């Protein structure tokens, strides 16, 4: 029974609430019980706020019973990456540096989720400050991949967000994404994850990695559920200087419009020339495009700048801004940083101002080029990651982490990108593709992702813990 409830989608739970077949309290109790039983196996949660969750669930139940309906997120149990501030609840960003940090106010996205009636269950593991790598000296153990909890890395940096949703420990989670931190864990944990357009979702109260690259967005079991969360958290916030003052559409409205006539550009060179994806991953992309073409999409090859160009720009901007954000703590208490960040933080201090500025100039060119591509294509598709979940023990701060990746181009361009599960490798690990769209056209990526999910069987398979 517990498993049946915890594996519902948001859309289905919302329907059952309104049909009187399920209550927010019963659903929240099922999640809290499952978290208690299963979280020790995967360490997705750093902190479970059970009492507050039950109180919120009771409030939602009461409101729904008298017809005060706040929309589809009302009464839905969600969880938050621990770099998202929560009023009166410890927020650590998975770092010893912030072990005593209890914010006075909620982040904008938490305010919005609460306003939509969602029920926060707790705070989720991540890579330290959304940038480090797992290391034994950290305050909390790393989250483990539910598909291979003995060895598999969850992807990062929203490690707990990916693990919790895949394992049925939250219906949706919020993550943050500076170079792939929502989409990588979504891909390796076999779920959907959307990095919204830069500026679509407020970062007020999100502990920064990189001011000009950070985005906050949803991870959920389905694309439709990502759309439902995005509706709740998107919108202008004058307190975030990067926030865009644009209307927020109903991202669920066009989900069922299909892909007939839609122009899809395949960025094949990203994962065949610039970097080489493993054969399972590449084959799944080809199979997915066949599915979409079979539904009437017009698929052809597209070409962008080489991945290395985006990687250079992202590294120079990201490292410099990371140092700017964390300089004071690093100088005062560098010993409290985990092994992977303790020295690496110094990289940002060693980037000359001129290099940083040239990278920002180059970013503008790359973003303009990407925008032009969307004159010819409604969406661009490529792989999300090169391989299924790698071993957790692999040193993420080593040479591998310095190679270009497939997610950075869309952070650099500031456009939305969605990761969707495309099946499973021979070893039973999730595969994924990435669907990007023009700035502020999240709806196009969501539409393609939802259409694909609706005609493929990948959402029927859950990890066995």
């Amino acid at each position, binding site marked *: 029974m517990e498993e049946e409830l915890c594996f519902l989608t948001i859309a289905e739970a919302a329907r059952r609430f309104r049909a009187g077949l399920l209550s927010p309290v019963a659903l929240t109790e099922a999640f809290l019980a499952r978290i208690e039983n299963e979280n020790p196996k995967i360490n997705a949660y750093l902190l479970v706020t059970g009492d507050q969750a039950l109180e919120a669930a009771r409030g939602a139940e009461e409101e729904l019973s008298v017809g005060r309906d706040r929309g589809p997120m009302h009464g839905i149990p969600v969880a938050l990456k621990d770099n998202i501030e929560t009023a009166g609840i410890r927020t650590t960003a998975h770092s010893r540096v912030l072990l005593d940090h209890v914010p006075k106010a909620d982040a904008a996205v938490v305010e919005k989720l609460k306003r939509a009636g969602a029920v926060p269950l707790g705070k989720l593991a991540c890579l330290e400050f959304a940038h480090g790598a797992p290391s034994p000296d950290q305050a909390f153990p790393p989250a483990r991949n539910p598909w291979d909890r003995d060895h598999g890395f969850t992807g990062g940096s929203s490690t707990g967000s990916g693990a919790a949703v895949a394992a049925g420990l939250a219906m949706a989670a919020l993550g943050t994404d500076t170079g792939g931190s929502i989409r990588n864990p979504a891909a390796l944990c076999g779920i959907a994850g959307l990095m919204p357009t830069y500026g679509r979702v407020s970062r007020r109260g999100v502990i920064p990695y990189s001011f000009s690259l950070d985005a906050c967005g949803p991870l959920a079991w389905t694309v439709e559920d990502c759309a439902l969360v995005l509706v709740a958290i998107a919108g202008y916030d004058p307190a975030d200087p990067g926030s865009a003052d644009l209307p927020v559409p109903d991202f669920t409205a066009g989900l069922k419009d299909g892909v007939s006539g839609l122009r899809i550009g395949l960025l094949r060179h990203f994962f065949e020339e610039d970097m080489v994806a493993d054969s399972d991953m590449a084959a799944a992309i080809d199979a997915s495009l066949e599915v979409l073409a079979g539904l009437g999409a017009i698929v052809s090859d597209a070409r962008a700048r080489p991945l290395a160009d985006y990687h250079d720009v992202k590294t120079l901007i990201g490292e410099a801004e990371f140092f700017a954000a964390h300089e004071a703590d690093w100088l005062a208490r560098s010993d409290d940083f985990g092994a992977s960040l303790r020295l690496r933080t*110094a990289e940002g201090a060693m980037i000359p101002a001129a290099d940083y500025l040239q990278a920002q100039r180059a970013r503008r*060119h790359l973003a303009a080029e990407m925008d032009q591509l969307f004159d010819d294509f409604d969406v661009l598709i490529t792989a999300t990651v090169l391989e299924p979940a790698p071993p957790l023990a692999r040193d993420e701060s080593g040479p591998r982490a310095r190679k270009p990746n497939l997610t950075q181009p869309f952070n650099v361009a500031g456009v939305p990108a969605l990761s969707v599960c495309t099946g499973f490798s021979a070893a039973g690990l999730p595969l994924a593709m990435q669907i990007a769209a023009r700035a502020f056209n999240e709806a196009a990526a969501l539409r393609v992702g939802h259409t694909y999910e609706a005609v493929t069987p990948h959402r029927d398979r859950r990890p066995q813990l």
Partner: protein
Amino acid sequence: MTEQSQDAIRKELACLFAEAQLTVSDAEMDRMVGLVAENRAAGERVRRLLGRYDEPAFGFPSRRRS
């Protein structure tokens, strides 16, 4: 990158680590010098990207003629 440039990076990093009261092994320092050198190379490549397009640093897109 010349040996001289690498030595300069090493000295600058040593100052920074001293300021942060961090003790760094030779191997760790070598690795950090490598990372900083990689970033300097990225800075050079980014400049080439800009040169290739020969774009001005600032412009009004709305005034661009088609």
